[in-house]
């Protein structure tokens, strides 16, 4: 886990995808995923087309396929669950080799795997090509309330600090001979969580003082935002628009 620049999903680069403004990419991501989710499960051709779009974007982004696929693994536990659906699904069943599966369940599994994977793939691509401060700036550009963006910004800044304190805490416990012995041993976890909260909160107090010291007066000033040229909007939204067209076609046929 990581925060800030080199966060776990970021791949440093200078591709056309990296250069697109974050706000454009965020809207593009939403458009693409909306199209994917709204597509009927039976339209297999449409999902193939989405996968193709994603592959083209991946090539454009210069993010290595290996990097992309390992990050996509976050999807795996869910695929494992989806694979169970054919066995618990309702409706008529048929034989698939040695197994008996429900047709509706099979379709449900396909629906889930296709959509969840495509959506996660698009999200991974966004995260891989966009640095965290840019995502935050993009969110505030898209009118996400500045207070939420500010909370997110603090959270990302201190994620590693807090996780580091937590890690040291557990090492210190282990160093003094602590071993979890039974399933009921939640107490040390919880007590260290409590201690961690106190430390986090007290750090919040000091950070607030540091902000005051540098003239903070309750107004959160984000950095100046440049105008995004229309061509960049068009270029960034193009995959999303194509996906939307495919979705409409898939629903009509």
């Amino acid at each position, binding site marked *: 886990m990581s*925060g*800030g*620049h*080199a966060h776990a999903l970021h791949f440093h680069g200078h591709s056309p995808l990296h250069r697109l403004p974050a706000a454009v990419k965020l809207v593009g991501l939403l458009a693409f995923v909306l199209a994917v989710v709204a597509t009927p499960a039976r339209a297999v051709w449409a999902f193939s087309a989405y996968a193709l779009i994603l592959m083209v974007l991946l090539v454009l982004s210069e993010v290595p396929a290996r990097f992309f696929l390992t990050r996509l693994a976050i999807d795996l536990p869910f695929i494992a669950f989806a694979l169970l659906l054919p066995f618990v699904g309702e409706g008529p069943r048929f034989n698939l080799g040695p197994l008996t599966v429900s047709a509706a369940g099979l379709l449900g599994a396909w629906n889930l795997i296709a959509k969840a994977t495509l959506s996660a793939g698009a999200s991974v691509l966004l995260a891989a090509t966009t640095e*965290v*401060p840019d995502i*935050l700036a993009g969110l505030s550009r898209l009118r996400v309330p500045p207070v939420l963006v500010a909370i997110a*910004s*603090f959270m*990302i*800044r*201190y994620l*590693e*600090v807090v996780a580091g304190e937590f890690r040291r805490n557990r090492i210190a416990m282990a160093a003094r001979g602590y071993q979890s012995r039974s399933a009921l041993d939640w107490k040390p976890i919880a007590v260290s969580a409590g201690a961690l909260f106190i430390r986090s909160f007290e*750090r919040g107090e*000091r*950070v607030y*003082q*540091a*902000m*005051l*010291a*540098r*003239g*903070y*007066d309750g107004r959160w*000033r984000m*950095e*100046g935002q440049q105008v995004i040229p229309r061509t960049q909007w068009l270029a960034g939204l193009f995959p999303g628009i194509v996906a939307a067209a495919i979705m409409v076609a898939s629903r009509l046929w």
Partner: protein
Amino acid sequence: MVTQLSVSDLSFSYPDGTEVLKQVSLAIAPGEKVGLLGPNGAGKTTFVLHLNGILRASSGTINLGGITLSDETLREIRRRVGLVFQDPDDQLFMPTVFADVAFGPANFGFAPEEVDHRVREALESVGEWHLADRAPHHLSGGERRKVAIATVLASDSELLVLDEPTSNLDPAGRRELVALLSSLPTTQLIVTHDLPFVFELCPRSIIMDRGRVVADGRTGELLSNRQLMAAHRLELPFGFDPTNIASR
């Protein structure tokens, strides 16, 4: 004497009645570098938080370059006093170094181009402009400290107040910090337990204990005064003898 900072009869108690500062008075001339020494719990950090108006005194006055601290002048005082906190992780709270250094100037109302210019100047003066796009938590201890100093330089502070600047620094980082601070012309007040550091950097020191100023004089003389040192739980590192080193 022309004063950069003059504090008179400053007293402060916590809401529960604990007296932390008792009639503290001191004056610092422009360009001076002064060490503020004292045992833990002497009230040094509390005192420092007053210089910026983060804590407000029960009585007494603070005057900075002719401006007296009050509700009306709070903002101006905060711009003029640059406070560098002990833990750079508290000081550097923005996602990038650039955004963090820009935080002060942006709050103090400088125009965007002016903010950018100041950020660059401040980071260059601490020799760390190349870190501008990095995230604070990926920097080394020494880099964090220098960037933390840049965050207050960017607002054109007249008085730099540093709380334990050498804590958690390796010897090389500490040496670089000495070089940086001695090269800065700004008036400096340095709160520290690191006596050789003060000896190297500050010709003058003030000792606080139990909320009072108990000594104020040349650093070399204070550090050589065994009685005074022992009375206030101050100890020199083994083998360090200020009388043997050319006094500053």
